[in-house]
């Protein structure tokens, strides 16, 4: 911490408030900077930059300043502060924030009553000392890979405002990629943490299904929904994940599996990890940028062997139909009573999902266990598998088609071709940005066995130490 920050020089504080999160927390705990100064600098930056990115749908300035003041008062009273003391964060607007209706990217949910309590993961962030700056833009009802939203406007890519942020946690990616906040939370059903991480050039963690509580968040597909954090470096990501773990009887999908802290494990890097490269489906339908990112990550991690998961296309198809049918069931009354208030691009898929044969969905759930068992066979030989996160860097906003392997395909459903089969079986994944000198970044997935978030995070840390994975500076 420099003397200039001690003197609270505005420009230095503004720079410092963008992170790393753990540097902020250390400085706030030691009293070298106040939580209020960090919070005020963050609010000022949001005021200037967010009109360009449209990442926020609600800035909770009063709440944030009150939380920051409470931290400063607690420190003055000699109380110990948490591991994320004073760190600004914001959440996808499907997390309940006390006092706000939980929009989940929709117009319809504006009519919901204000939430009376924060989501469990928001409560855990605040318990760890983090300061909540607000709610973030997202694709309607999380049925989205683009970050586009016809109600709130599109969240924009911090590296080129004419390109997609990725979805559905678009605001979460844009806010961290644009350095509005050092940390954010999002959700991932089919890729909605990993796609914005790839497009916005940041780190994201989709944990094991059943690992982190989803209590008091708006669902999409209960079978496949996960919540998780975004950050600009691996230590911040691990520390945030560690703060979010723990049992919660209010999420019935949570598994009774102990989570050990991952932050102390990071410096082990990839030592002892058996790392492979996923081929087959994951080596087709991508662009050279996607394959190059995998090759660079594999080289840095010493991964030489390419292996295949069987029947990946069927896994993707299963996730596709389960999502459509469960999503349709969730929104059935709204589809009947408020059809005109949906984004048509969402409604048209939900209506198709409403008429899918039931036997198909049951079979897809049966196949899910079969595919899970094949993945576990691979993890008997490997600790981490590398795959592309997205087939392309961020497409242009509004782009309808792209060409993959010489075939013209629709953008919206096909951005998630590499993420969808992995979340289908709930494997933990770190999405790590692998920038080049091209303006738009792209990321890789570091996929681990169930409950081995630590292995994925260690591989990401090894890539970071090798200078291969890092969050590039935004162009604002």
């Amino acid at each position: 911490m420099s003397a200039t920050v001690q003197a609270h020089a505005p420009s230095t504080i503004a720079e410092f408030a963008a992170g790393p999160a753990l540097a902020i927390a250390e400085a706030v705990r030691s009293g070298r900077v106040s939580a209020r100064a960090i919070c005020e600098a963050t609010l000022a930056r949001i005021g200037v930059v967010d009109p360009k990115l449209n990442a926020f749908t609600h800035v909770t300035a009063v709440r944030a300043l009150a939380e920051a003041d409470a931290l400063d008062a607690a420190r003055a009273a000699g109380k110990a502060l948490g591991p994320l003391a004073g760190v600004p964060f914001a959440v996808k607007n499907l997390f309940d924030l006390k006092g706000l209706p939980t929009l989940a990217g929709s117009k319809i949910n504006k009519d919901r009553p204000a939430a009376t309590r924060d989501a469990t993961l928001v409560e855990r962030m605040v318990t760890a000392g983090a300061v909540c700056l607000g709610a973030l833009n997202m694709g309607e009802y999380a049925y989205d890979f683009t970050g586009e939203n016809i109600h709130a406007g599109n969240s924009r890519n911090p590296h080129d405002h004419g390109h997609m942020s990725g979805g559905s946690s678009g605001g979460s990616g844009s806010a961290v990629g644009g350095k509005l906040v050092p940390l954010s939370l999002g959700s991932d059903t089919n890729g909605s943490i990993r796609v914005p991480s790839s497009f916005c050039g940041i780190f994201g963690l989709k944990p094991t299904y059943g690992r982190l509580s989803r209590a008091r968040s708006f669902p999409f597909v209960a079978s496949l929904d996960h919540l998780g954090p975004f950050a600009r470096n691996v230590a911040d990501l691990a520390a945030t994940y560690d703060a979010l773990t723990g049992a919660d009887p209010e999420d019935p999908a949570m598994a009774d599996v102990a989570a050990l802290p991952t932050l102390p494990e990071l410096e082990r890097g990839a030592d002892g990890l058996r790392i492979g490269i996923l081929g087959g489906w994951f080596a087709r339908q991508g662009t050279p940028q996607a394959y190059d990112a995998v090759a660079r990550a594999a080289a840095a991690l010493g991964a030489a062997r390419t292996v295949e998961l069987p029947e990946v296309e069927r896994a993707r198809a299963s996730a596709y139909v389960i999502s459509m049918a469960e999503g349709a069931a969730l929104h059935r009354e709204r589809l009947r009573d408020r059809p005109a208030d949906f984004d048509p691009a969402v409604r048209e898929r939900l209506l198709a999902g409403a008429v899918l044969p039931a036997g198909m969905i049951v079979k897809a759930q049966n196949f899910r266990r079969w595919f899970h068992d094949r993945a576990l066979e691979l993890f008997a030989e490997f600790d981490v598998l590398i795959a592309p996160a997205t087939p392309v860097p961020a497409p242009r906003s509004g782009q309808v088609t792209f060409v993959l392997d010489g075939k013209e395909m629709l953008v919206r459903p096909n951005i998630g071709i590499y993420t969808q089969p992995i979340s289908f079986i709930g494997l933990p994944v770190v999405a790590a940005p692998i920038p080049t000198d091209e303006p738009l970044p792209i990321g890789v997935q570091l996929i681990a066995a169930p409950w081995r978030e630590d292995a994925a995070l260690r591989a990401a840390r090894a890539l970071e130490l090798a200078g291969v994975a890092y969050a590039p500076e935004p162009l604002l």
Partner: protein
Amino acid sequence: MTDDRTGSEPGDLGTYLDAALALAGLPLEAGLRPRVLMHLHTALEMGRLVLDFELPDEAEPAPVYRP
């Protein structure tokens, strides 16, 4: 372009869609119907991949209810 079928109505899929939506009480205006049909066709192609895969009768679904 492989999955954009807005102009076609495979088999009697349109009849099925109209009847199923009517049974469910879900409104669909004419302008959006081709898009819904396209998505339904894509989903049924995906579903065919799933249904065609042979699993033993003993195969359990993934989510297990824990009382």
